[in-house]
């Protein structure tokens, strides 16, 4: 273990070009997919939690089902859709970061939506009643709801980012873990482990955890400020 930590430090300090490539691909993938999932999931969650409409129950069940979708199933689905026999083969997106992002968005958006739905459902009724009583219009009520949900939005983002950075099943299937192209931290760890290079695998794992810690600590600080 200590040799792995040493290896991890050496890797970081040596600014290994392959490691830097893996890190930048991981950052690009995780940040992009989690932000897109947030942009899609927050309005959807606010809609499901804050409004009552026909078909809401079905959408809730569907979303809760998608929240538990195994990443490999998602990966397989995208693989079939974009591979040589799939309907979207002409787009030539298989084994690209773009498709990895798309697959992760499908995986993560339901998680953001579910969390926002729970948060909005707890706030929206009392907020709506008070805001209606003050004569505030629909747009103003929506802005207030988003403002009141700032803390849950950050929580949802933390969950989304954690899921994105730690996810391996879908990205391995649609990305193919191609070195210098689609290899990310999790797939690289799998590759090194399969090759018997455990110390490098653990070193990458430690770097992954460190990255996750930095992002989570920063967002938690922001969250604490919002909470007060």
């Amino acid at each position, binding site marked *: 273990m200590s040799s792995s930590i040493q290896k991890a430090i050496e890797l970081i300090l040596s600014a290994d070009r392959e490691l830097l490539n893996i890190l930048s691909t991981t950052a690009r993938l995780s940040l992009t997919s989690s932000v897109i999932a947030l942009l899609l999931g927050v309005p959807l969650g606010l809609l499901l939690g804050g409004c009552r409409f026909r078909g809401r129950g079905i959408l809730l069940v569907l979303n809760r089902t998608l929240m538990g979708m195994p990443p490999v199933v998602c990966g397989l689905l995208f693989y079939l859709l974009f591979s040589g026999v799939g309907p979207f083969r002409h787009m030539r997106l298989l084994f690209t970061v773009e498709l990895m992002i798309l697959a992760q968005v499908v995986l993560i958006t339901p998680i953001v939506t579910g969390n926002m739905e729970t948060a909005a459902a707890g706030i929206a009724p009392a907020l709506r*009643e008070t805001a209606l009583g*003050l004569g505030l219009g629909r747009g103003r009520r929506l802005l*207030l709801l988003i403002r009141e949900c700032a803390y849950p939005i950050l929580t949802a983002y933390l969950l989304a980012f954690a899921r994105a950075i730690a996810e391996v099943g879908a990205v391995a299937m649609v990305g193919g873990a191609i070195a210098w192209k689609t290899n990310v931290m999790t797939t690289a760890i799998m590759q090194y482990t399969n090759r018997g290079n455990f110390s490098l695998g653990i070193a990458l794992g430690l770097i992954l955890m460190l990255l996750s810690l930095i992002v989570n600590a920063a967002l938690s600080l922001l969250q604490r400020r919002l909470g007060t």
Partner: protein
Amino acid sequence: MRIDAFSRTYEGRCVLRVPDLDLADGAVTAVIGANGSGKTTLARVLAGVEPPDRRGWRRPEQDVGYLPQKPYAFRMSTEKNLLLGGKDPARAAQLMEALDLRALARQSARRLSGGETAKMALARLLMRDFKLLILDEPTASMDRDAALAAEDLIRVCRDRTGCTVLLITHSLRQARRVSDRILFLHKGKLLEQGPTEELLRSPAQPETKSFLDFCGV
């Protein structure tokens, strides 16, 4: 102000049936009745928070200010909460002064006590002039002095703007102090109405009498 007859049903159970009703313009009308008599449902339907059974029913007044039983304190300072109701900082300062909230102006409204939140919510509502004010137990969690200050403020607001006030209350003393008329609800029905003193002194219905006796009037 004329209110057309309406009813409200929850899960097949009719919880409120109101006949055609006239609210005296510019008067304070207190709504009294036991728990579950339909007071809050009446307020919520008139405020447009929930719909009555009949589609196409029109509210008597669109310019309605409504203070819910459990008002929401937005995640911002007390003063900013007030400014959500209206944009005049001078008026906000005046209302905070009247309700002894000045010292709490910059404090987060989420940190206010129950009574302070009730005062903040009333002040926030009074930031704007409405034609109909519906107040659902506005002083329930206030202490005596705060409740009296709130009652004064409601009267002043009514006198200044000429608005009609519907005050839902459990306190017959408050109804006597503030209201010009009383509506008595019993099991979802409007059982009796009349001028405050007249109804409190000589109720016509046995249920009203029994309720007033229980409340020690």
